């Protein structure tokens, strides 16, 4: 249970940090800015799509319901 809470805390921290990065300006880099930087070149675009595809297949096509 504690680790499940830790996962949720990590997810919330990531969302909160993304929002504060977008408000703080250029001092801190947001995930969106990193994605945009990678999206500017073909290898970066392909890497982002590969990561996105892995997440999609892993979560939506290869999930196992507990129990």
């Amino acid at each position: 249970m504690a680790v499940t809470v830790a996962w949720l805390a990590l997810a919330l921290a990531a969302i909160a940090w993304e929002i504060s990065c977008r408000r703080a300006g250029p001092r801190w880099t947001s995930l969106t800015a990193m994605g945009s930087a990678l999206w500017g070149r073909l290898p970066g675009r392909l890497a982002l799509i590969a990561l996105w595809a892995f997440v999609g297949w892993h979560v939506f096509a290869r999930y196992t319901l507990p129990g």
Partner: protein
Amino acid sequence: MAATQGDSNGRRSTVLRATGVVGAAGVVAYAWWATGLQPFTTSAYVAVGLPVAGLAVVAVVGRPGSRFAGGAAVDARGVGRLQLRSTFPWVVLLLLAVGLEVAGLALGGRSTEVPTLSTVIDHALGWHGVRLALFLGWLAVGWAPVARVAVHRRARAA
């Protein structure tokens, strides 16, 4: 003349809005269908693969500076400053996540005490509505760079 141009712009705006509504409804319908499929089946792999293939085509066809490839130019905040100092908090979050995942995998991957991220997500996937919401979020994240560029270009053209 001005009234005719105004009518034309109004019609164009209405058509664009209607197209957007129909498109959004189509995406939700597709997501509902895709998240209702049995996992580990060919149809489930294909349902996830179709948006991936579509985005891959856009990414390969779009060249730097072209319609869909200008993501870096569109959202330039922080770009060009990708140094360890400005990304340090992300590295910390990533290391924490990797640590939890490795610990969970070391315990067999299905431990109730130390679940992996997949196990935590699997608990939520029992409800079709949650799967639908996550699938729509996944689509939004993947297609966001293309959407940002399209919106940016439309704003510049207006």
